[in-house]
């Protein structure tokens, strides 16, 4: 198999590695993969955690090793890329669409510095109203905030923007 083929296979396999906390998103959707290479018949993958304290990181690394290893029949090394830090603009458009369909509002696009105002009037994933307010910047997982929609009366979660 050529190296290009192997790398294409690795990407296909990575699409099957889901975030245990948001099972509709895979690690590519989340922008967690920073590099894929094949050296000496070993797949080397660099990844970055979304939050420093994310408890799912080692589980995700293990999943990557298992699934990519199974799909390519090669040994897989997964390491943390310290040169890149994760921010919420790394979420792909597909990821945001999947999030909304899952009932979680997507993070707003930010330009470098994040201001508190960006969290206001987050569109409700249920009725799309912007007549909403931030109830708490902390939710059921580190990456979520809690909002309230004044139009449909629903409490909803948002994948929060992070600079």
């Amino acid at each position, binding site marked *: 198999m050529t190296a290009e083929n192997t790398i294409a296979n690795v990407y296909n396999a990575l699409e099957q590695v889901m975030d245990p906390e948001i099972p509709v998103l895979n690690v590519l959707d989340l922008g967690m993969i920073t590099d894929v290479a094949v050296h000496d018949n070993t797949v080397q993958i660099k990844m970055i955690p979304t*939050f*420093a*304290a994310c408890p799912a990181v080692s589980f995700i690394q293990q999943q990557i090793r298992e699934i990519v290893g199974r799909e390519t029949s090669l040994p897989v090394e997964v390491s943390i890329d*310290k*040169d890149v830090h994760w*921010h919420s603009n790394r979420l792909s458009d597909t990821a945001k669409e999947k999030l909304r369909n899952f009932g979680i509002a997507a993070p707003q696009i930010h330009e470098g510095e*994040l201001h508190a105002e960006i969290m206001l009037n987050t569109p409700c994933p249920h009725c799309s109203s912007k007549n909403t307010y931030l109830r708490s*910047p*902390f939710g059921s997982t580190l990456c979520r905030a809690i909002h309230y929609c004044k139009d449909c009366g629903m409490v909803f979660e948002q994948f929060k923007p*992070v600079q």
Partner: protein
Amino acid sequence: MIKNAIAALIIQMADDELILGHRNSEWTGLGPIMEEDIAFSSMAQDKIGHAWALYRILQEQLNGEDPDQFAFMRAEKDFKCCHLVEMPIGTYDFSLMRHFLFDHAEAIRYDCLQQSSFEPLQQLSKKLKGELKYHTLHADAWILQLCKAGGESYERMQAALEQCFPLAAGIFEPSADEQALIDAGIYPGERELHERWLNSIYPVLVKASLNMPDPAGVKPQYGGRSGKHTPHLQALLQEMGEVFRLDPSARW
């Protein structure tokens, strides 16, 4: 030499995060409203994660121990946290004010570390700064809301500020190695951080109509950085490490 000074700085920062993270977690199940229960629990998770990341730098770059062993097996005198983080959670107004004062100090510190000449700290600070935005956002919103409520609510926030202020000044306890760290461009030093911290909390206190004690008239509560602690720390360490010490070699 400089490596020892960097390690000492990281231990202080990490111990503050670990101990306050543990304190915050004591609100789990007890928060005055559900959102605050969740917020303090989330911030606990963040802080303990930050402590772990710092202990990890010690291990990988400065010949330190395994982070779990280091966090749970040290003697009380080997902890270098400040007294502010050791205090019991008390009432919600105390915990909220502590969170406000500490997290602004923490945000300032990581902001400055983005220019650090020590690369691992510089890289980590970039990551943590974005997360800390939510901590200060949370603290500011509640301080303002409770102060604007007036009456007992306002009076309790003012009393909590007066109680916490000398303790919070203790975050910036000077150390013997500080000048070496400043000269090496590791960080700007505690005095500078203290100044920047005052500039960061002052506008929020003004908006909340709280009277900040005159920093010149406040006696900072020092001692933590040299391993002298309040009686509260030993009890906390006892509880925090209880399960770990049952079998320190267990794999989790």
